[in-house]
Structures are given as structure tokens and as C-alpha cells.
């Protein structure tokens, strides 16, 4: 790889970009216009709000622990205040103010001085304005008293006619700052990502569309050099966009806060945000380039990139979510981490641990994305778009038989079943009612919405079933391996759930709903719905069809991708990680045993264990007590406390032994021609502690 070539390509890409009006629009005009507009809108809203506030009277709840008629009179005479007498010490009306009159002995004096406690909510503009009005009235009163009675003997009274205390019920002191601290990170993250979008498409798909890709490929520049040169230019544009946004945003921020409040974001915070922006820019530059490389035209690339951008919207918006705080786990989640870190910095919170975690994890993802982009550029199938889109809406007789589905077809099936589960499974609820609506619905969903569509689509595509679904007999050793892996995963998943519990708590309704179904329904029906159906149907889809569709990737990439997709399919944050872990293990087992059956077995045992433990929790506890493990073990099984390290170490050891066995006794790859297209197609995943099929999530959601 020659630095000179990278530089030459980088400079040329930059020159082209500067000459392109569209990029400049997004890059420069965007921030330069957006923030002043934001500022103007904000100021105007503020003015309108201000005018409205002026008109409204404040309700003052007056609680007299000790009566001070003069004070009460002063407050009542104020036209903006409406006095309501109350005996309650709590402020129930969010928009009101509670004024508590009491007495206190003034310093070095016998006499009692009125003590006024003003209770309000700063986050409520009406309440806050009311407080200001009350204070102003008290101030006025206090001045009048001082002016009216000049008596040196009563000096103390003149200096301290009233003792005023304030009590703010809002937790956040700076309302305005907190609003900006919440919205601006989201805008910054989204604008930065948007900054990468256009140049990433332009330098890859755009180049293909204009027919210049062959020109550059015929030059002596290596493919790696081309990608890095292009990437650098995308990255620089992305950073410049981010930088301009940050500058415009900081100015706006200072402007607004300078006008209406006292505190501004420290300079160090801005620098920190800027540095954190680097890995984010690298990540999205590389990711969008990689995705666009697949497309033939600019428009097609836009179609691919836009969903990514939309997917980023939700995590970016997490900064607006009150009470959603950055923790170690969220530090590892792309986009969310950056959005929340920015908010912390905006709020003046610096936690080195978070900064390092966010920076490190984002850099890691960025490196992977960049690697992927280079790899794709070396793949002539992707580069020349030689792969045809998958067959759909094509008459079946026109399709030729093939050994396995394509990637597009596999992804399509996953999306289809997901949509079916989401929209159709609620409708299945009434079809068949047992002791609980939950159990029958799971069975119907598994077979009708997963198994049936997958098998039907496979039949339509004329794929080789034996190959696609790995319907091969497995060696006995792999059955043994499935048992070992099950045992290991069971404990590791328990521990994983405990580890994740602090970050992503399991909703109570979710587990209650499952355990209700498990306990009330007929045992064998529960086994059918929670263990047998998921093991057969989900394995057919994930370790069958999907794994076969991932055939173009290397084995490890297939195993990991399969696991991750399996996890994501389970929708809820608290289920994704454990389920993905199980998915990776099953996928590994299926890939190396070349048979789906050990995978189904592992999935079955995993889910069966959960069913038994949920249904017979009392008996289990009794049993555990009998054998002397008692309360401690029951807590482990409930996911309430960490497992002892010996048990974790043993499980990890067994996991390694099981995996090694699977690998050691893998059947020879019988395929000729080397590539792993169809040979070791299906993998399988299994699920994490109290999780079964995706339908359950849908149910719990409702």
C-alpha cells in the first residue's frame, strides 16, 4: 500500500467534492442555516411563551403556620397573584407556588421575624415565574418596612424584616440548559451521519453509475489504496460537517444561554465532543461506503443507506429521553453511546470511564466497518454488482433449482416472518383458547408464522432442502457436544442475565406473563409451545434458511452474523445479548456438525430447562434445600445473584470442551471447488434465560 497513491486519490476526491454543489449544501449550508433558524425559532417561542406567562396569574397556596397579616395583605394586593389558603404542606399543583409562613427568632433578638418558605418547581415555567413574582412582592414589602420604620433599637428588624427561603422541587437546576443538552447531541449525531451519507454514496455507487470505476481499477492504484483514499475524503467531509455543526451549535448554545441564563458549555467539553466525533465519523463513513459499494446506482445506494440513517434516529434520540442515563453497557451501543455522552458533556458531567469506553467501542466498530469496506471493494461480485437481486414475484416454473438461498432471500424471509409475528400473531390470540392465551398463541405463531412461510418460500425457490436445512444425520459425538454446550450455556446465560440486569432490567410483566402461561397450562402443551416449537421452527429458519443464505461469508462471519440476527430478532434489549450468545453457540454447532439436529436438540434442552424451572420453582427450591444448596442456588436460578466463580469457570471450560469436540469431529467438507457455498449451511442459535420465541415479545409488548 503506497501512501502517495492514497494521497493522490484523496486529494482528487476532495477536489471533486468541493466542485459538487450538493455536498456543499449538506456540509456547509446545513449547519450554517439550521442553527440560526433553531435559535430564531427558540427565541421567538420564548418570547411568545413569555408574553403568555405575563398574562397568567400565579396561584399561590398560602399555608400559615404562624399568621402575619401584613405579609398576607401584601401578597393579596399583588394583582398577578391569586391567593388560595391551604393547610397542606405539599405542592400538588405543578404550575403553582406554595408559600409557607412561619416565624423564627432573628439573630441576637428576642422578637420573632416572619420566615417565608417558597416552594416551587423550576422545570415548570409557570411555577418558576410564580416564584419570581412572590419573591419580588416579598422584596417590595421588605423595602417598605425598612423605609417606614426607622428605629435604631429595632435595627435587626430593619435589616432582616423577613427571612426568605426557597425550595425547588425540580431535580435539574438548569432547565434551559437541560433542554439544549438533550436536543443538541441528537442533532449533532444525526448531522454528522448525514454528512457522511452523500460523499460515501458518491465515491462508490456514484462512481459505478458514471462508469469511472473501471477507469480507476485499471490504474496501478491498488484496491486498498483506492478505498483508503476515498474513505479519507468521506471522513474529512464527515468531520468538516460535524465540525461546522458543532461550531454553529456552540455559538447558538452560547447565544441562547448568554441571553437567558448564566452558564455556558465549557470549552473543554466542546473539545471532548470533537474528539469523540472522530470514531463516529470513521464508523459511518466506512459503513455507508461499504453499503453503497453494493449498489449499482446512486439511487439504489440511497435506498440502502436511508434505512441505516433511519435506524440511527432512534438511538440518537435517546439523548432526549429523560432518565435515560449512560451506563457501562450503553457505552458499548453504537450511536446511543455518542448521543448520551454528548449530553453528559453538555450538562458538564465528565466521567473518564464513559469517555474511554465510548471512544474504544466506537473505534472498534469503526475499524470493523473500514475492514468490511476494503473487503467489499476487493470482491468483484459486489463491485460489479454481478449478483442479481433475489427472485420474488417470478413464476416458479421459470426458476431453476439451486442448492441454497441467496443472502437477499434469507434476509427477506427473516424480515417477512418478523413482520408476520409482529402484526399477525396478535390476531391468533382468539383462535384457540386454552388455560392461558399465551401458550396457544406461541404454538400457532411458531408453526404458522415461522415454519410454514420459511418452508413454503424454500419450496418456491426450489432450493435443495437437505442442503439448505442441513438435514443430515449427525455423528453421535455431536449429540454429546450438544449436551455439553447446553449445560455450559445454561449457567453462562444465567450469569449473563445477572450481569445485564443492572443495565437492562427485565420488565416484570414480561416474566409474569410467561410464568403464568407456564404454570397454568397443561404441562405437555407448555413443552410443545415453549420448547419443541421454538426448537424446530426457529432452528429451521435461523440455522436452516438464514445460515444457508449467509453462505457467501466466511464461517466465523456466518456464525457471528447468525447469532446477532437471532438476538436482534428477539427485539427487547434485555434479550438481545443472551439470545445472540446462544445463537452463536448453536450456529457453531450446526456449522461444524453439518447437521441441524444437534442444534435443535440444544435449543430444545435450553428451553425445556427454563420451562421446568419456571413451572416447578417451589419443588426445585425444596429439592435444592434437600441436597444442601438451599436459598443460594434458588437465587442463582432466579437470576438474583451472581453465580460462584467456580461454576462460571467450569461452565466456560465445558463450553470450550464442547466446542473443541464439535470442531475436532467435524465431517469432511465434501464439496468440490473449495468455497463454502452450500456445504456447511445451517447454524443454530439458542435462547437465553427466560426467553423463547419472538412471539412472546410481541405478546409482552401488548
Amino acid at each position, binding site marked *: 500500500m503506497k501512501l502517495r497513491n492514497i494521497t493522490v486519490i484523496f486529494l482528487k476526491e476532495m477536489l471533486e467534492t468541493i466542485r459538487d454543489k450538493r455536498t456543499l449544501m449538506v456540509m456547509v449550508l446545513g449547519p450554517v442555516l439550521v442553527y440560526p433558524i433553531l435559535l430564531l425559532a427558540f427565541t421567538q417561542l420564548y418570547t411568545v411563551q413569555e408574553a403568555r406567562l405575563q398574562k397568567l396569574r400565579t396561584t399561590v397556596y398560602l399555608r400559615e403556620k404562624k399568621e402575619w397579616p401584613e405579609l398576607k395583605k401584601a401578597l393579596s394586593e399583588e394583582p398577578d397573584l391569586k391567593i388560595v389558603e391551604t393547610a397542606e404542606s405539599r405542592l400538588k399543583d405543578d404550575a403553582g407556588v406554595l408559600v409557607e409562613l412561619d416565624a423564627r427568632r432573628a439573630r441576637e433578638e428576642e422578637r420573632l421575624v416572619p420566615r417565608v418558605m417558597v416552594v416551587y418547581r423550576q422545570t415548570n415555567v409557570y411555577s418558576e415565574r410564580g416564584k419570581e413574582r412572590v419573591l419580588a412582592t416579598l422584596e417590595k414589602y421588605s423595602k417598605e418596612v425598612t423605609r417606614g420604620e426607622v428605629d435604631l433599637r429595632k435595627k435587626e428588624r430593619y435589616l432582616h424584616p423577613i427571612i426568605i427561603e426557597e425550595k425547588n422541587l425540580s431535580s435539574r437546576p438548569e432547565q434551559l440548559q437541560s433542554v439544549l443538552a438533550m436536543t443538541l447531541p441528537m442533532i449533532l449525531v444525526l448531522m454528522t451521519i448525514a454528512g457522511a451519507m452523500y460523499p460515501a454514496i458518491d465515491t462508490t455507487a456514484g462512481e459505478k453509475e458514471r*462508469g469511472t470505476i*473501471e477507469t480507476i481499477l485499471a*490504474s496501478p492504484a491498488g484496491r486498498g489504496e483506492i478505498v483508503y483514499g476515498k474513505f479519507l475524503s468521506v471522513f474529512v467531509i464527515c468531520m468538516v460537517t460535524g465540525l461546522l455543526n458543532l461550531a454553529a451549535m456552540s455559538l447558538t448554545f452560547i447565544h441562547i444561554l448568554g441571553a437567558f441564563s448564566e452558564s455556558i458549555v465549557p470549552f473543554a467539553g466542546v473539545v471532548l465532543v470533537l474528539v469523540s466525533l472522530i470514531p463516529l465519523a470513521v464508523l459511518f463513513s466506512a459503513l455507508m461506503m461499504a453499503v453503497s459499494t453494493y449498489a449499482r446506482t446512486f439511487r439504489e445506494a440511497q435506498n440502502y443507506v436511508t434505512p441505516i440513517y433511519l435506524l440511527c434516529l432512534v438511538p440518537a434520540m435517546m439523548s432526549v429521553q429523560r432518565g435515560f442515563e449512560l451506563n457501562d453497557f450503553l457505552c458499548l451501543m453504537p450511536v446511543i453511546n455518542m448521543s448520551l455522552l454528548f449530553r453528559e458533556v453538555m450538562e458538564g458531567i465528565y466521567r473518564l470511564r464513559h469517555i474511554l469506553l465510548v471512544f474504544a467501542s466506537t473505534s472498534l466498530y469503526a475499524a470493523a466497518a473500514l475492514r468490511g469496506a476494503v473487503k467489499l471493494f476487493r470482491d468483484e461480485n459486489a463491485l460489479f454488482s454481478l449478483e442479481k437481486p*433475489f427472485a420474488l414475484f417470478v413464476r416458479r416454473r421459470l426458476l431453476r433449482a439451486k442448492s441454497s438461498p441467496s443472502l437477499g432471500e434469507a434476509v427477506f424471509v427473516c424480515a417477512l416472518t418478523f413482520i408476520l409475528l409482529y402484526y399477525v400473531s396478535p390476531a391468533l390470540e382468539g383462535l384457540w383458547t386454552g388455560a392461558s392465551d399465551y401458550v396457544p398463541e406461541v404454538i400457532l405463531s411458531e408453526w404458522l408464522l415461522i415454519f410454514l412461510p420459511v418452508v413454503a418460500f424454500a419450496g418456491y425457490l426450489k432450493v435443495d432442502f437437505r442442503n439448505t436445512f442441513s438435514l443430515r444425520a449427525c455423528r453421535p459425538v455431536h449429540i454429546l457436544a450438544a449436551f455439553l454446550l447446553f449445560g455450559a450455556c445454561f449457567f453462562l446465560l444465567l450469569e449473563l442475565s445477572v450481569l445485564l440486569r443492572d443495565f437492562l432490567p427485565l420488565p416484570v410483566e414480561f416474566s409474569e406473563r410467561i410464568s403464568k402461561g407456564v404454570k397454568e397450562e397443561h404441562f405437555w402443551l407448555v413443552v410443545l409451545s415453549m420448547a419443541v416449537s421454538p426448537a424446530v421452527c426457529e432452528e429451521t429458519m435461523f440455522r436452516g434458511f438464514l445460515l444457508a443464505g449467509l453462505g457467501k461469508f466466511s464461517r466465523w462471519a456466518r456464525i457471528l452474523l447468525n447469532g446477532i440476527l437471532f438476538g436482534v430478532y428477539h427485539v427487547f434489549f434485555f434479550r438481545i445479548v443472551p439470545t445472540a450468545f446462544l445463537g452463536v453457540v448453536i450456529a457453531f454447532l450446526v456449522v461444524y456438525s453439518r447437521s441441524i439436529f444437534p442444534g435443535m436438540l440444544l435449543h430444545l434442552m435450553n428451553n425445556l430447562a427454563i420451562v421446568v424451572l419456571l413451572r416447578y420453582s417451589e419443588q426445585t427450591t425444596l429439592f435444592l434445600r434437600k441436597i444442601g444448596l438451599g436459598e443460594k442456588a434458588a437465587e442463582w436460578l432466579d437470576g438474583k445473584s451472581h453465580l460462584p466463580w467456580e461454576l462460571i469457570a467450569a461452565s466456560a471450560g465445558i463450553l470450550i470442551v464442547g466446542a473443541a469436540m464439535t470442531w475436532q469431529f467435524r465431517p469432511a467438507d465434501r464439496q468440490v471447488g473449495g468455497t463454502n457455498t452450500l456445504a456447511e449451511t445451517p447454524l443454530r442459535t439458542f435462547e437465553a434465560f427466560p426467553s423463547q420465541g419472538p412471539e412472546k415479545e410481541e405478546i409482552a409488548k401488548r
Partner: protein
Amino acid sequence: MIEVLSLSKYFSDAKQQEIRAVDAVSFECYRGEIFGILGPNGAGKTTLLRLIATILAPTSGTARVCGYDVALQPEQVKKRIAFLSGSTGLYSRLTPLETVRYFGRLYGMADPLIKERARAIFDVLDMEGIRDRQVGKLSTGERQKVSIARVLIHDPEVLILDEPTAGLDIVSGRAVINFIRTARNQNKAVILSTHYMTEAEEMCDRIGLLNAGRLTAVGTTGQLLAASGASSLADAFFYYLDGKQN
């Protein structure tokens, strides 16, 4: 100069069926020779030339350009070739001068040398007037001149031209043909593909007939006519086409 040895390229289509775009093709092209590859659309001409230009990697077999293997030493091959095809577009936001400079730099040339070569090439192609206008604003013929200037900047030993006259009017087409003949006279090896029989007959020293990925015949126009007993190259072409089918 160019030796193509049993070169093959297979693709798989949507139904994962194997398509043999180039199937065990072998031929040589010498210095000072124009070797024409003649074939109908979809015969595999472009894929064959892309393989020689190292843009695609062969499924099996190989080709050597100036003694360098396309699969093993693609960088060395790229330095010595000029590749021009219908799909080698130009960057529309760069000027001809910037285009030529960009590629010159990628070929590792120093800026003064690029300047000198560019001036000479622009002079020959009569492009001085357009050198500072953005390529996007040029006519098709002018753009083809820029493409030619681009491939000549590093003084390549081998020219690989995929339908170089396609879509050009008669004036621009003539300019291209002149440039190809000049290159031959400078003792360069030229491989060009075309589906115009007359162009092939007129320009090429030897012709290879390509059909469905296979080279069905190689020889001078005279040899092809004699062997097939046909009176025109077109007839000879159909003779070999049918021969394969039979």
C-alpha cells in the same frame, strides 16, 4: 507481448447456475500488431479484456502481459497497459488536464514529466482549447479524446481497447482509428474488441472470432476467408458460428 493461456472466467447467475463468460481462451498478440476480437454482443469480449487488464480475476488459466502474470503481478501489468472501454468513464467535475495529471500521478510519474507528456498529447489530439474545461461540459467526441489522453499519459506498451469507436460519429471515430494506427506504428501491442466487421477487416492485423466465451478461429482476414471459403469476414464469421453449433 501478450500471451493468453487457457483463460477462463465463470460467473454464477441469479439461480446460481454457472455461466462461462470466457471459456479456455488462448492467443498471443505481438508488438506492432493490432489484434482484433470480433464477436456478437454477449460473446464475452468485455470480460476477456477485463481479465487481461486485471480488473477481474480469472477463474482458471492466466494471461501474461510483457512477461507479468495478470493474477500474480497485477500492479506490474497495470503499469504497462492502457485500458479503454465503453465503461471507463471520466470524472465529470475534473478538467482534462486534471484528469491526465491524476492518472499520471497514480502511475508514479513526477509532475514535470506529466506536464511535458500532457502538452505533447494535447497537441497531437488538438485539445489545447478544452484542457481547462470541466469534462462534464464536453461533447462525446471531445470526451473520447480525453480518454485517449488519459490512457497515453504513461506511455503504455500495450493498449487494450474495448469497442473504442462505439457511439462516436465518423469524425471522432476516425480520430480514434488514427490514434490506434499511430500506436501500432510506435511498436505497441494493441488488442481491440469490436462487433463491426468492416472496422475489424480494415484495421486489424489478425482477428480472433469469439462466440459464447470460446475463441472459434484466429488468423488474418485472408487466412480466415481461405479457411472458411467465405467471401467476406461476415460470412466467415457465420461459418464458424454455425460450425460450432453443428
